[in-house]
């Protein structure tokens, strides 16, 4: 009567991965950027949602443009969980490709999150936290001129922001990778 294929597992795993990513990143952002827990969770949630959605959009636009052979490989991977290996291609190259692909996705997500964080912070500046942060630093080097200090603070914040976001992403993506490997094995 009815035979169909629904992407229910994709939805389930995406929810799981989003929860993992949001919780890990929120924890690290909270630690590194001295934000309240609520704000850091909100940041992590919106950044991850945004990068996920952009990832989907890229997939939707790119898939029809790929060469037919690649399309078939992708269909095989999504529907049947394997890449149909052309007999000529050694396994090493495939793993190398996969690794490269993972790295690319990681960088893409990172870039998207950087830009999004920048926009978010501009949109509703976390002025309170920045001031709070600034006070700490200004206490430590109070001898310098005001303008120089201001620049330094900005610079410090900027570096801190990108560094913490990078670290947060490394942790969360690694965890997700491990979990997805476990899922594949099971």
């Amino acid at each position, binding site marked *: 009567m009815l035979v169909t294929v629904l992407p229910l597992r994709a939805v389930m795993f995406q929810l799981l991965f989003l929860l993992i990513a949001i919780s890990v990143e929120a924890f690290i952002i909270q630690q590194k950027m001295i934000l309240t827990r609520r704000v850091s969770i909100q940041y992590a949630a919106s950044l991850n949602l945004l990068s996920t959605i952009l990832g989907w959009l890229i997939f939707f636009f790119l898939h029809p443009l790929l060469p037919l052979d690649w399309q078939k490989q992708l269909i095989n991977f*999504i529907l049947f969980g394997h890449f149909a290996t052309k007999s000529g291609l050694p396994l090493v190259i495939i793993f190398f490709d996969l690794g490269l692909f993972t790295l690319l996705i990681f960088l893409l997500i990172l870039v998207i999150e950087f830009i999004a964080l920048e926009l978010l912070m501009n949109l509703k500046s976390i002025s309170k936290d920045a001031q709070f942060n600034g006070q700490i630093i200004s206490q430590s080097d109070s001898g310098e001129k005001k303008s120089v200090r201001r620049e330094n603070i900005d610079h410090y914040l900027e570096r801190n922001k990108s560094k913490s976001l990078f670290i947060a992403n490394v942790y969360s993506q690694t965890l997700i990778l491990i979990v997805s490997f476990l899922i594949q094995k099971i």
Partner: protein
Amino acid sequence: MKKIINFLTFIIKIVKPPQFFAWKTGIIISFLIWVIALFAVGELKNILAFLSWLFLIIGTVWFAVENPLMVSGISISSWLPGGLICIFMFGSLSNQIPSIALVIWPTASGAIAVMREFVQPGAKFKIPPPRVCQKLLILFLSHVLISCWLQFNFFIQNWLQRYPSLLADDFSKSTFVVKIEVLSKANSRGAVILNSMESLLKTQINEKPWSEVEKWRINASKNIQILGEQAKKQLPSVEENAMWKFGEVFLPSNSGYNLELLVKWQGLGSMPDGYHLKKSCKIIPVSRLAPTRPERLRTTFREQRKDIRSTKSRFVRRGGFPATAASTPAELAAPSSVTLSQVQCGPVSDRINGQPKIAKP
């Protein structure tokens, strides 16, 4: 009479908007315009229908903004105007609701749910405080994510339309999809191809003189390819048709021949090396009593007439008598037997992993 009046006042009480600017006004206006549109004709009807839709959407959006039915912080009532907007935008083009309308639906509902925070009582625009803004962003993005999932689903349905035989495959290894089967099983279209190949094969070499089978056998592999292409043409043409390949195993047996029809599938599916389906057929000679002499004469006479008609010449007898007529007197005297071919085929096999090893006889 009193009851009716009571009922009417009750209805009016329900329907009547509390003030002029309320969501009920929009819906009432929409309803009235729709009633008028029923009696209108031509271009006017379309315009009125458009206006009716517009007021209905305004009314429902208003309703959703004014009283959101909150379930754990997410307003449910925004899904109604969201759906209406999608049907209005994409459904009016054709009578059928396209997939894009379904995909946009969650996003539209999310936008309406977010819009609620931007509108103050008295239809004034306001920008909510940053804390709420952040929450709204998450709310909206999660609605968009649902849209993405729907779109992904339609992607998969599109693949299954292009390659319908995939539905018969095994999806248990996938980390993305699950297969749902209710009361039926999907079959690989290879089985359909094999069955129509069988019937085509029978029209070619069933109940034919044995010499024809021998002639057919010489070009067997080429003939099978042609058969397969013909069988594919009988199916609805989809992209996967090009992926079915044909093969055969033609072996002599103690009586006649064993023919295995093969259809091969490679490139997509749970088996990395593809699979093939098999149908075993037996072609055996059967001796029949040859028709008696008068009958045979009648048939030869008929053939000759056909022959003559086809050449459209009354005087030229091409080819002389057919071979059967020019037989020895001994054969004419005794009722002899003629060997005819008979094709018997078994059922289609299950999917067999890997590609067949074709043994050349």
